[in-house]
């Protein structure tokens, strides 16, 4: 097992590579991510989300993009291979919220990012 190296932040591009994720929308993947949260309820995102946070979620809905915009998040990773439909993608573009899609479960996705950020 390789020993993960502790990093303070990861760029969206590094997160994409780490997860083997697909980029559904994202103009600038050099954005640095230092905080990550996982949630499927919009109020939890609004309550716990911090500006600049990356959201891991199983909800590929328009409301989740609006929630991310309102909470000032830096992007959304859809887990379990979920794909945004056309209208969701158009909204993400309009709100400039990058969307990535990871093939893994929420637990595995969070675990990989946690290991890379915390280095354990």
């Amino acid at each position: 097992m390789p020993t993960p190296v502790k990093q303070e932040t990861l760029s969206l591009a590094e997160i994409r590579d780490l997860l083997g994720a697909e980029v559904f929308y994202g103009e600038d993947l050099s954005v640095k991510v230092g905080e990550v949260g996982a949630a499927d309820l919009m109020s939890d995102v609004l309550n716990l989300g911090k500006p600049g946070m990356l959201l891991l979620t199983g909800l590929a809905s328009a409301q989740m993009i609006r929630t991310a915009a309102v909470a000032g998040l830096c992007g959304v990773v859809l887990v379990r291979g979920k794909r945004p439909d056309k209208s969701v993608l158009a909204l993400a573009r309009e709100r400039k919220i990058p969307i990535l899609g990871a093939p893994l479960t929420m637990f595995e996705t969070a675990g990989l990012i946690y290991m890379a950020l915390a280095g354990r």
Partner: protein
Amino acid sequence: MDSPEELESVYLVAGRDFINAGRISTAIMDVLKRLGTNPEVVRRVAIASYEAEMNVVMYALRGKISLRVNPRMVTIEVEDEGPGIEDIDLAMKEGYSTATPEMQEMGFGAGMGLPNIMKHADKFEIVSEVSKGTRLFISVNQSA
């Protein structure tokens, strides 16, 4: 923009329109950003407005969101026609929700809406009449 600091707008919300839920609050967020409002104030208003808008979509027949901006504060008034709230103290409790499982599958109804509004507002008032509707008054000060 005629006046960069004073503004009053009214937006209509359709009950049960889950697809568009949140559209008005993101529009309000854009208006405030354009006015050059402090980003933290924008965020707090947008979050409170978004939660209130989702409550109207989930429970009411229809509603109205009024935004007022002046140099001292931003206020949001949300008035709906709907079932109203029987026990406001209970509705204010974190985690208490009357949302259906279908609503929760869509990410709505965590029972955090009203507590979240209160948390992000400087002033929050709620008045409700069963079988008539609910009115919320939310204000956020322009300076911290």
